[in-house]
């Protein structure tokens, strides 16, 4: 199990690197879509069908929006030599990445390996979940009943984003 997941994540890393360094913006957006769709396969391997459905459709919508933005533009990235400011930001980026990775590698040793995670709060979601919430799908039970307040916040986040998009895309801001 761990091997197959690691292979897929390795491919995702390659896709991500290509997406960042691609010359043509459209191919970079499509590479990002590929990384999203391979996440769907990971979800299926990790026994999360709910997430697979939502991720595959949301990734399609994100791809549509990104392609809509990139398509009518001159798609090549204006490549320019890294000036000093570029080198500084690249150096700080790499430094930050090395530090974070080093910290992560050490602190991961003391935590439980993939697949052996114990349960504490979630025990009671699984145990009496079907009776308490009445829903056969435990994830929907958790989403809409145990943590329904989060999901209302969630729906409000989406409405805020719609309002935000409507305000940003209106033609005239000031009278």
């Amino acid at each position: 199990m761990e091997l197959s997941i690691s292979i897929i994540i390795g491919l995702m890393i390659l896709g991500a690197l290509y997406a960042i360094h691609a010359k043509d913006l459209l191919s970079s957006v499509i590479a990002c879509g590929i990384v999203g769709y391979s996440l769907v396969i990971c979800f299926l391997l990790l026994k999360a069908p709910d997430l697979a459905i939502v991720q595959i459709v949301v990734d399609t919508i994100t791809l549509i929006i990104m392609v809509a933005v990139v398509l009518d533009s001159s798609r090549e990235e204006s490549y320019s030599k890294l000036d000093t400011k570029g080198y500084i930001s690249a150096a700080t980026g790499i430094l930050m990445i090395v530090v974070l990775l080093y910290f992560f590698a050490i602190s991961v040793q003391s935590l439980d390996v993939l697949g052996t995670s114990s349960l504490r709060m979630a025990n009671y979601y699984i145990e009496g979940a079907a009776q308490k919430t009445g829903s056969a799908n435990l994830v929907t039970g958790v989403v809409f009943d145990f943590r329904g307040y989060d999901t209302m916040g969630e729906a409000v986040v989406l409405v805020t984003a719609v309002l935000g998009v409507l305000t940003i895309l209106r033609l005239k801001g000031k009278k």
Partner: protein
Amino acid sequence: MNPLIPLFVIIPLVGAFLIMIIGRFIKEFNKYFASLILFSLALISFYFLFTTRENSFVYKVGGWEPINNIPIGIYMVMDGFTAIVVCIINFIGFLSAFYSISYIKRYTSENYFYALFCLMIAGMNGVVISGDIFNIFVFLEISVISSYALVAFGVEKNELEASFKYQVLGGLASFLILFGIGFLYWKAKTLNIADIKGAFSNGYDKTYYLFVQILILSGFGLKAAIIPFHAWLPDAHSSAPSPISAMLSGVLIKAVGIYVIIRLFFNMFYISEGMSVLITTLGTLSMVIGVFLAIGQWDIKRLLAYHSISQMGYVVMSVGIGMILVSRGVRNEVAALAITGGIFHLINHAAFKGLLFLNAGAIEYSTGTRDLREMGGLAKAMPATSATSFVASLSISGIPPFNGFFSKLIIIIAAVMARFYLLAALAVIVSIITLASFMKFQRYAFYNEDPDKKKNSIKEVPFPMLFSMIILSIVCLLLSILVFPGIRELILTPAIDILMDPSKYSSQIIGM
């Protein structure tokens, strides 16, 4: 389980959606409806300020009782510290909404403005009263996404660019916070703040704990614009409409940034000395660098934005001093004094920074420029604005009768008693430079007479803007009474007790 707590989130949400629907048909509806909503919220928060003295109300959303001492559902917690911050949010929110009744005439589509404003208030209230870290993240996203859109409200070049930079850094912070939550869940297997403290009580790996703390600190530090992550604040606050930058500077970076850092580091993590020294140095750095960046500014709003960073540095430094003493376990009363100074300065900064941004908006409203060099002699043309701005400038630079002086005094005394003489000296120096910078602001904006400048066309701002500015300047004066022992026990001390001994917080939440 008193049922008033969820009203903090329900009222602004339902109000925002009603504004979106009804505002389309009745033009004048949304202006007054939004102010009415926020006024009712301010009343409820004052009610809570005076009733949650020692106890803390816990509201179990969904009615899920804990099973053998492990909380299942999401908890809303209203205790001393929450009551103070909720008061700041809703009171300054009401005044900004009332202020923008006439300010917003210069922008198109007021419906979206008021709907997003109510959603931002709902998000901030949700963050402050929730006792569950993932819930804090969701409501953080509501308030932050609506502030992205409000920063880019007048859709011109610098506003769009500032909002884009703000979104990139804000999104970065959200992913760091999500990763931190994932990491916490990995070991603690629970999301309730008090329960996480319980889960870590039987020992934890040092580097893992440090890594999680750094992730969470940098995530929320980015929202609070602490020094290494402050890049977005000057652009975002100077290009937003003035009532929004008053809300952003006065309330958002506190409720969503500083409050969550203080709450998590006192009530969720075990404070280690290394971490508290890091927080104190970050606070001192942002205090010093913020003020030096602010000196060279000529645009009023950028000047005020940089001063926000330095004033937030005061709060973080004094809370950091308290954390160092708590982690060493020595001199608890000095630690309590340091944290009191920090929270008191938080309240004061909300009052006078909000007022300064409203003044900047009033100047921009009547003269049309924000550049100090093009102004002059506004004192005669706009008497009320110059009076309130004089009050605010004196209180931010810590002149005795005003509230800024007392909170800075407590911070400096605490630093001296905790034997951090360097920090105390820096605090005094920065206060003096702030005074100099605001004297420059006053002189250029209001007092130096330029005969050639046309002053007759400038007239005073309409009533709603005046009303909120005058109320805020009165509040700046009134807040100084918080120092006296009688009032302080009522409001500040319960917040300090909740933070000082964290077992009080978890025992009330979980009954551990």
